[in-house]
């Protein structure tokens, strides 16, 4: 993905899935999804368990390839290029489209190293101390850890660990951050902090969040995509629109039943 390809068509979308189907072996987990993620917005993906939300999210930076037998069909357009093109290196894709996971997974290294490592392996040339401080400040963690940067990252509380993971992700300066239920393992206070953080981060980054928590989706997101599964247990996109429309005036009956809690 060379710099010359940047913004050949700037349509305001950070990521566009076109007819994206994802398979695990013979099983079709996700069927023909068309979804355009707007830049500098928070897009929430909601839906019942097993509808392929996380699978879709992982396919946005080719993390699904780490799962054996997984394969994708269709296109995911990022910066005007299909990331599934044979000449695109997934390593490059993943630096530009970072990921935060459900369970906080800091490296069993110092807080400083947690941030610095990703930048270093990606050939970061600048001032590392500055980068670490900036990333921790951006992730609203600096004040809590500035005196113990050499302590091990796994000793932090769950919420701090998750913000450390976010800091680590933004340290490699991605354009998009994918978040896979980032607050589901956290208590309400830590969850609130993550949500506030997301609101600040969307000024610089595009955020896609998968969540089970509909209130969370309603609170934080600008657009919401609702997924369901069909008779073959394949997930598909039911409805996609501005969050307040999805939650106040859904066009699809299934969306309405889901957000009002009548099934799922």
């Amino acid at each position: 993905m060379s710099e010359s390809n940047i913004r050949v068509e700037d349509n305001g979308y950070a990521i566009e899935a076109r007819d994206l189907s994802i398979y695990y072996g013979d099983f079709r987990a996700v069927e023909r999804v068309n979804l355009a993620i707007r830049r500098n917005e928070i897009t929430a993906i909601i839906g019942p368990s097993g509808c392929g939300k996380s699978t879709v999210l992982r396919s946005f930076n080719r993390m699904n390839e780490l799962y054996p037998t997984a394969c994708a069909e269709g296109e995911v357009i990022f910066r005007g290029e299909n990331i599934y093109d044979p000449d695109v290196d997934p390593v490059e894709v993943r630096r530009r489209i970072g990921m935060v996971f459900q369970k906080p997974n800091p490296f069993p290294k110092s807080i400083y190293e947690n941030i610095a490592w990703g930048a270093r392996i990606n050939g970061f040339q600048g001032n590392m101390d500055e980068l670490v401080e900036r990333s921790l400040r951006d992730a609203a963690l600096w004040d809590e850890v500035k005196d113990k940067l050499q302590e091990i990252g796994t000793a932090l509380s769950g919420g701090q660990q998750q913000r450390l993971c976010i800091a680590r992700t933004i340290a490699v300066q991605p354009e998009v951050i994918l978040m896979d239920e980032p607050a589901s393992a956290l208590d309400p206070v830590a969850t609130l902090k993550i949500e506030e953080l997301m609101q600040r981060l969307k000024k610089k980054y595009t955020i896609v969040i998968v969540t089970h928590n509909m209130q969370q989706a309603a609170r934080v997101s600008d657009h919401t995509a609702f997924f369901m599964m069909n008779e073959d247990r394949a997930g598909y996109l039911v409805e996609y629109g501005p969050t307040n429309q999805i939650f106040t005036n859904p066009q699809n009956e299934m969306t309405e039943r889901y957000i009002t809690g009548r099934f799922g």
Partner: protein
Amino acid sequence: MKSISANGAFEENIPQRRRTGQIWHTLFQASTIVGIIFLSALLYSVLNQTFGLVAIENQVDPAALAVGGVSVEELSKEQLVAVLQEHVSKGLFRRFEYDRPFAQRSREEVYRLVWQHVVAPQAVETWSLYESIFARDEIEAAVAEEFPDATLQFRSWLNRRLLTASQSSDPEQAGIRTAILGSLWTIAITILTAFPLGVGAAIYLEEYAPDNWLTRLLQTNINNLAGVPSIIYGLLGLAIFVRALEVLTSGAMFGATDPTTANGRTILSAGMTLGLLILPLIIINAQEAIRAVPDALRRASYGLGATQWQTIWWHVLPNALPGILTGTILGVSRAIGETAPLVVVGASTFVAIDPRGPFSKFTTLPIQVFQWTARPQDEYRNLAAGAIIILLLLIITLNALAVVLRNRYSRRL
């Protein structure tokens, strides 16, 4: 169908369930105790042989060697040489002179020669530690009757001489220095071959190999190889390292042949054979250690744009290292105790010269023990017991090292 009522549906069987639990508890406890009994018996029999009374008879009474009222301990070097010349055969005396002229030898050295060849103390009978403690009177009576010239002394067969002397046909002079050095050399070669190969194979199988029938076949075979009798590895080592690769293992290829052997029965062959023997163990242990590294770490690494190699090198290996090291050390302690394959590969039963490198002929501690226990003289059994204690200490040290490494390097995940 019987109706299910709150009271009738459950049998009143709590006492019976508790009794069953108690029986199993007792059985498990009993098996532990049996194990401890056997281990204690092993330790007892070794210690029983290592210490005990010895009846020593001198060929010539040291008092008889006194010259002009001066006891043999205080004679000058020249007087000692004269004593030696007087008591040993002309041929032997010439050999001493030929090995190293007396003019160059120190007084201590000559004194040792006198002690070895003139006084020549011999253990005429030995007793176990148990007998020495509980039947001391009978032993003293028996010695006074059967060996009137002998003196009775309490001896630890595990002493400095055992550690520092080399192999000898005289049990009073024999030690295990060559065997310890041989064991250490062999183990060094074993680690050098098995560790990189084993860890490399484990990384490939866990991180790179596709999950197909070939990989599964390989995996099954590795698991089976871990259970193949060690003598089979000895035969393999004999065929491949000693015979087929003789040019390499004898050192001829590098022009480094040891003058004492010049064939493939060298430390290098032995070390590589033991390396093969513990290779499956190391692979399996390393694989388990690698598998125990949480996938969350790998995903975190990939999510930052790391390549597969960066993920393995910076996250998988450091976190698997304690497990890999533990597995390796356990494999190595097994290799240290191996005897059968080395007998096949051609361990020398009698090596009096220290090994000088990988191309020397060799003997190892277990071989030495094996060979000593087969000797007719009783004293060798005592020496073997002392050697066994050294071998056990070596293995305990290695295992302790494994624990230390595991504790030091295991990090919180």
